[in-house]
């Protein structure tokens, strides 16, 4: 009889963990809140830094889950976690030999940075909205016209204590670079300005892409956080920032303002953590047992993590970590049940 | 019979008009250039005119303008090509002249009489006594024809003549070149047809004429003969008309240039009339293309000296071409005409960029960040502050020799001014020159040592430091070693030395660094060294190529240094040091470093 593992969350991390577990002879069960698998990446057009279509990553994963006959619960929310199973909102309990928390993150709600006017001004959009537009094939202003000048603002809901988001969301910088390039490819004569506090290009090929955006695509990078945005009579967006490299305030009017929204910890993390006896990091994410040797282990036996439940990560990192999670779970089960 | 020679036929008109036009234009050009010479230059001419230099000049004209001795040194086949065309044609003219004199005695014969003598006097040479002339003239024609053949061949396969690339020409050049190629075959055909009609001829024209007479009816020969003389005259005329506006102007420009140079005229930082002689003396032979690393390493094909001079001559010089040069001097070293390519290019830059501004660099007034005291002054140079090991090593060497040193710029100094000059801002550079010179005088130094060849060159050429001996640190160290003031241990390392352009070709310092290296270890010379050394690509003179291109040049030349199997690459310029260190996997050190570490 195979051991049973409940994987909470059917995004990239959950799917990959389940696939790896299944191939190790473990019986995973995915519990997904949404009505289908895929998580946040489903809403993404292309992935940095290679411009691989997100669907090319997510669809094969979902297909494998299906092909391997992994059991999935859809539209089910987990309210309690324990080492021996989870409880759903319907109070149904799914017993298990181990639990993987792959609950991911919540996108920062751009409304909370009211000064940028998201939801107030027609042409202020988030990076997620932009991806959605790109999936639709065309990025336009609210009135359907083409943008000629676009500002991309980094760190919306990241590194901002004013909205309780002290952490760096890690992926927005490179997303900003990627989207700037995509916009320039779509509208070569448009001017794209990236407003940033720091540019963090940590991954392989990221710095190169950044440089390409600068040199080849002529994307303007301005070091300074936009302080406020206002709508003009033409429905354009007037923004104010400091160009910190010249030490002077800078103001300009753009056709479109893109807010690179960061990753927030899920709002129900405290509840889940409390039910399982886990602690959360100060930024609200789950805390791994150890930063080096126990990144996928929780502080409780039998409960594991995969993906962005513990911290913001790129999709590539998430997938790599999910495999590690599966191997850790497998080792745990073998050890627990004395399998030689 | 002689009276019958009237030396006129309509077909000679293109030639007569063409040659008169050519001489008129050349005389006009020369007069203009000479008249516009600055006073200093005219004084030099007056002083030099009746000296031995004039005779030496005449000998040089024979050697260079006719025999092209220097090109023979580049490549014998190439040399033969040039010499056969120039000297062969010259002899054709001279022997032809003698021929007419021998036939007719000393009497005035118009120009066309000499040139078309065969036509005007077809029967005179039937006398067997004169056959020797016929054969001589034919032999000379053959020499020239072989030259033309080689020239044609060079267009197709230049490598045979030691040239990987040949010049791309402008329209005037193409017209003149095509005409030139036709001149001698046309002469051969015309003379042979004349021989076919009237007999005579040497081994070439005679044989060909006899053959033609045997195979073609008289009527046709008669018509062809006239037409061929027309054609010969026409291509000559065309060539002469095109000549003053084409590269062939070099034939007549190099001659006065040789004399002017003998009278010690030379180009300067500012453009002047003399430059015209240098610019138009370029034959666009293209020998400068191959040594250019911009061409060899980067495939840049529009900026080599031949193109630069061409563009300048035709007033189509772009800023980019003027600026896109490393000024490594490799082309100048190779130029068979000895044109001062670097100076000319610099004064082109000056023309565009030198904007006098008295207020500029006012902040330099009274600046003195120097330290220490001594008769010996050390000027590390701006770049040396990025290679602090050089500074440290020099301090150790000075200490070992027990020399008190005044340090001009240990805490940062004022630039020597050469970088500005390289960019053409000669007036502005003067401010820096004055500032530093005042410092040297104020601190009463007697010897000025610098680690930067860029600084060295400007100190020597522009600073007027009478009473102060200016030395590169390689020279200074060589002296300390020779005098025993510094004693060194030898190590077992193999060192390869890279000649910095500004030090080697720029200041002529090749031996001192080699002596110094020889004192500490074994020297292995790279494939290109000394006068022939490659540039590191980091040159301040070039503001056009980008970082990646600089690096590519450095990689290519560094590979050559590494190929010697050396343990350590040694150079004597902070800029070269930076370029090489970036491209090399071997340790790269300044010469002062290897000395300092071996001090006993």
């Amino acid at each position, binding site marked *: 009889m195979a051991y049973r593992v409940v994987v909470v969350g059917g995004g990239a991390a959950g799917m990959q963990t389940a696939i790896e577990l299944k191939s190790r002879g473990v019986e995973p069960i995915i519990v997904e809140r949404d009505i289908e698998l895929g998580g946040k990446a489903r809403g993404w057009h292309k992935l940095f830094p290679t411009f691989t279509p997100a669907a090319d990553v997510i669809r094969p994963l979902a297909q494998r889950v299906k092909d391997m006959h992994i059991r999935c619960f859809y539209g089910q929310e987990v309210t309690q976690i324990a080492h021996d199973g989870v409880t759903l909102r319907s109070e149904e309990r799914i017993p298990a030999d181990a639990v993987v928390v792959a609950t991911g993150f919540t996108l920062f709600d751009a409304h909370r940075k009211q000064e940028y006017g998201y939801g107030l001004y027609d042409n202020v959009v988030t990076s997620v909205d932009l991806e959605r537009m790109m999936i639709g094939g065309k990025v336009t202003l609210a009135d359907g016209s083409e943008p000629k000048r676009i500002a991309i603002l980094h760190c919306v809901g990241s590194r901002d204590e004013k909205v309780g988001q002290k952490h760096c969301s890690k992926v927005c910088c490179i997303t900003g670079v990627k989207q700037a390039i995509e916009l320039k490819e779509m509208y070569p004569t448009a001017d794209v300005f990236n407003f940033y506090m720091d540019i963090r290009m940590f991954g392989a090929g990221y710095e190169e892409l950044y440089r390409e955006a600068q040199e080849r695509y002529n994307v303007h990078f301005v070091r300074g956080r936009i302080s406020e945005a206002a709508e003009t009579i033409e429905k354009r967006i007037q923004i104010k920032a400091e160009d910190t490299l010249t030490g002077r305030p800078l103001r300009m*009017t753009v056709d479109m303002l893109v807010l690179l929204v960061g990753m927030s910890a899920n709002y129900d993390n405290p509840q889940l953590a409390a039910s399982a006896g886990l602690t959360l990091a100060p930024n609200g994410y789950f805390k791994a047992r150890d930063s080096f040797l126990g990144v996928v282990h929780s502080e409780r036996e039998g409960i594991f993590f995969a993906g962005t439940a513990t911290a913001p990560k790129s999709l590539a990192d998430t997938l790599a970590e999910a495999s590690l999670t599966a191997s850790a779970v497998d080792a745990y089960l073998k050890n627990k049940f004395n399998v030689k | 019979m002689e009276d019958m020679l009237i030396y006129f036929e309509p077909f000679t008109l293109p030639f007569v008009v063409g040659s008169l036009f050519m001489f008129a234009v050349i005389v006009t050009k020369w007069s203009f250039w000479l008249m516009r010479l600055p006073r200093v230059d005219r004084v030099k001419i007056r002083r030099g005119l009746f000296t031995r230099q004039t005779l030496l000049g005449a000998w040089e004209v024979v050697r260079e303008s006719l025999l092209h001795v220097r090109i023979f040194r580049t490549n014998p086949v190439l040399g033969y090509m040039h010499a056969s065309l120039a000297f062969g044609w010259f002899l054709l003219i001279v022997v032809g002249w003698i021929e007419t004199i021998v036939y007719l005695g000393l009497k005035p014969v118009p120009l066309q009489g000499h040139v078309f003598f065969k036509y005007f006097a077809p029967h005179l040479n039937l006398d067997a006594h004169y056959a020797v002339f016929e054969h001589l003239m034919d032999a000379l024609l053959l020499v020239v024809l072989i030259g033309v053949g080689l020239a044609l061949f060079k267009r197709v396969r230049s490598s045979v003549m030691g040239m990987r690339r040949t010049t791309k020409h402008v329209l005037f050049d193409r017209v003149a070149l095509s005409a030139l190629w036709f001149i001698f075959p046309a002469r051969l055909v015309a003379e042979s047809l004349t021989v076919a009609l009237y007999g005579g001829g040497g081994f070439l024209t005679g044989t060909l004429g006899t053959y033609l007479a045997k195979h073609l009816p008289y009527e046709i020969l008669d018509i062809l003969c006239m037409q061929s003389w027309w054609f010969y005259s026409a291509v000559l005329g065309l060539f002469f008309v095109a000549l003053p506006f084409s590269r062939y102007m070099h034939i007549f420009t190099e001659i006065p240039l040789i004399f002017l140079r003998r009278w010690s005229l030379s180009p300067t930082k500012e453009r002047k009339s003399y430059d015209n002689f240098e610019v138009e003396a370029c034959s666009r032979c293209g020998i400068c293309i191959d040594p250019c690393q911009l061409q060899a390493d980067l495939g840049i094909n529009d900026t080599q000296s031949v193109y630069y001079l061409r563009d300048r001559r035709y007033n189509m010089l772009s800023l980019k071409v003027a600026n896109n040069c490393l000024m490594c001097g490799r082309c100048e070293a190779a130029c068979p005409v000895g044109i001062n390519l670097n100076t000319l290019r610099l004064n082109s830059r000056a023309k565009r960029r030198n904007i006098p501004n008295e207020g500029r660099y006012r902040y330099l007034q009274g600046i003195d960040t120097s330290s220490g005291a001594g008769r010996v002054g050390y000027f590390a140079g701006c770049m040396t502050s990025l290679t602090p090991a050089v500074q440290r090593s020099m301090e150790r060497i000075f200490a070992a020799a027990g020399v008190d040193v005044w340090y001009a710029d240990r805490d940062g100094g004022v630039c020597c001014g050469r970088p500005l000059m390289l960019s053409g801002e000669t007036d502005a550079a003067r401010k820096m020159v004055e500032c530093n010179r005042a410092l040297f005088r104020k601190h009463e130094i007697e010897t000025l040592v610098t680690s930067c060849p860029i600084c060295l060159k400007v100190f020597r050429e522009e600073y007027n430091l009478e009473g102060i001996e200016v030395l590169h640190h390689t020279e200074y160290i060589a002296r300390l070693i020779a005098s025993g003031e510094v004693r060194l241990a030898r190590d077992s390392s193999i060192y390869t030395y890279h000649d910095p352009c500004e030090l080697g070709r720029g200041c002529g310092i090749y031996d001192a660094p080699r002596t110094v290296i020889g004192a500490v270890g074994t020297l292995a010379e790279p494939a290109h060294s000394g006068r022939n050394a490659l540039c590191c690509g980091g040159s301040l003179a070039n*503001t056009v190529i980008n970082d990646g291109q600089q690096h590519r040049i450095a990689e290519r030349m560094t590979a050559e240094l590494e190929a010697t199997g050396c343990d350590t690459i040694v150079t004597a310029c902070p800029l070269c040091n930076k370029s090489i260190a970036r491209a090399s996997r071997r340790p790269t050190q300044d010469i002062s470093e290897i000395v300092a570490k071996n001090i006993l």
Partner: protein
Amino acid sequence: MRNIVFGYGISRPRAIDMDNNDLRKSGDIIAEMPELQACIGCGSCTASCTAGRLTDFNFRKLHTAVRRGEYKGVYAELSKCMLCGKCRLVCPRGINTRGLVMLIKRKLGDF
């Protein structure tokens, strides 16, 4: 309008006005030297600057200002540069800084 002496005028905003600045020149400069956009503002050029040791010359700020269409005073300020080329040796992004000084001066000085 009467001639009233107010003793003050309407101060010009210190802000860089990207809507009204003439960005064509800066566009030309970037087009000639696209690598300029790769500047990451590290300040190596300014830190190593020979003229910067003796004056308040700040090349990084100047060329950044130029990229924003702020040209006032830049030509005069750039005239402090001695073109020694140290900055080019230290630039981690491989920008041809020395050529850039000349380029900006050429574009702003019309020669």
